[in-house]
């Protein structure tokens, strides 16, 4: 399907749906389903804005295959030790930045609130998604997702995807 022939409103609806589903799976702790929103040969990174602005490559989380996304989740479930917590994503309206025949690039602001067993919620991570979305095997999926975050003082640790 040539994405550039689709009406803008339809594209935006698909983009918005995918980004909302991404947030919901994480917030609802359905992490095993999360990698399925990505193509096999994907990129996913969570990177501090201070590095992005300076052209420095280090990301807090960097995955370059769907297998690595699965490994992150298996590690979270079976190996890592972290405070019990929930995420709550608050997502802005997406803006379509670019439409190519095979992909659409969208920018979306996000806030991730975190709640631990103290019961208090706080802003854990504020940033911007830069998403490259493709239509593959009958579905819209992420080929690349970057979460570039302003909150570069990470509270305690980061185990869950943003």
């Amino acid at each position, binding site marked *: 399907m040539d994405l550039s022939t689709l009406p803008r409103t339809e594209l935006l609806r698909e983009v918005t749906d995918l980004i909302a589903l991404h947030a919901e799976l994480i917030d609802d702790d359905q992490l095993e389903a999360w990698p399925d929103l990505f193509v096999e040969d994907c990129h996913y990174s969570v990177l501090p804005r201070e590095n992005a602005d300076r052209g420095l490559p280090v990301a807090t989380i960097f995955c370059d295959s769907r297998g690595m996304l699965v490994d992150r989740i298996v590690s979270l479930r079976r190996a890592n*030790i972290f405070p019990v917590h929930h995420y709550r994503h608050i997502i802005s309206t997406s803006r379509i930045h670019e439409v190519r025949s095979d992909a659409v690039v969208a920018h979306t602001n996000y806030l991730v609130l975190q709640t631990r067993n103290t019961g208090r919620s706080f802003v854990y991570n504020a940033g911007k998604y830069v998403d490259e979305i493709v239509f593959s095997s009958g579905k819209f999926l992420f080929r690349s997702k970057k979460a570039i975050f302003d909150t570069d003082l990470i509270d*305690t640790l980061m185990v869950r995807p943003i």
Partner: protein
Amino acid sequence: MLNVQDTAVGKVSTDTEEPIGCRIPYSVFTDDAFYKAEQEHLFRGPTWNFVALEAEVPNPGDFKSTFIGDTPVVVTRDKDQSLHVVVNRCAHRGATVCRARQGNVPHLECVYHQWAYELNGDLMGVPFRRGIKGKGGMPADFDLKQHGLVKLRVEALNGLVFATFSQEVEPLTDYLGPLITKHVERIMCRPIKILGNQRQFIHGNWKLYAENTRDPYHASLLHLFHNTFGLYRSTQTGECLMDESKRHSFLYSKAGSNDAARDSEVYQDSRSFDTSFSLQDPSLLAGRSEFPDGITLVILALYPNLILQQISNTLAVRQIVTHGPDSFELVWTQFGYADDDAEMDAIRLKQSNLIGPAGMISMEDGEAVEIVQQAVSSDRKARSYIAMGGGGADDADHLVTEGAIIGFWQNYREMVGIEERVS
């Protein structure tokens, strides 16, 4: 005869009711009195504190703002390439002079009243010094030379920059000692390039992290990912050694030096030995052997505020910045070598998933520090018990020891004092 100091330091208390070992009162982690005393006697005392990598300030005019303990400082590179470290506080009325984390400037200037300083901290001039139309101005005897920024002593070792407030402390390599110097030089063996920063805020006392990084005992028990993939096991060849003063520690291990069959026996019943877990994408652990000595993990803990590490192909400094008795910031700066090829760049970036605040073998340290902080209190009777490896500040040719933690506390006791400050 029993020396009170020694009972708490460990190993000598055989003639008392106390078991052998080192005991530290928990109020060292909670009381403001300790926090204030260590800022003065330790961070601003006779210690060398890490402030920057030279590669962070490569060009004349480059600066980096950072902290020694909680004192703000600026590292600058001067026109003649020399390095300076000055307190980031205007000599006039105390405003922060450098407000950016890093940048490049011809000189330092306070925005409040535009007092301007050379890159070495000397005061260059102040606006309206002679007043306006004969009115106002500074006193006639005002001497620029008397009002510069506070200057620290600075020394660099193979690209690591350290500073001290002390005029008395020995030169840097004497302070580090030959063993630590040698292993700093091993990692910092050629020019580096900065790959990026990560910052982590931990709700705990910084000394809990000083203990954590001198503790090879926890590594295979807390960090399950580590253990499962054989990156580090207590059965590996490794040592935990200290400099002569026992301030600093050098912990290393060699992956692949263990016998997998024997490991299941040693780790019998341990929740941390689950080898059924395999990676879908094993490229994460595909690295390159880059040191001829075969060492795959190095944690150098340099008293008081630096950890220099090599874990597989990740290279990083971790700088401790204190925020108060119950919190600190850990600034991770990852680097590679300037001559790394594209494949090596890719390996380091991928392996950076192992370290940092989201590192699959390091994130637990944040939680470990916090669960201690949450449970300790200023109850003067409550103390920890540190004795693995024999209960003394001893080097070990194995990884089941807490000797370097005891070495840390001996130095802390000498510099800050412990028992006499417990209220």
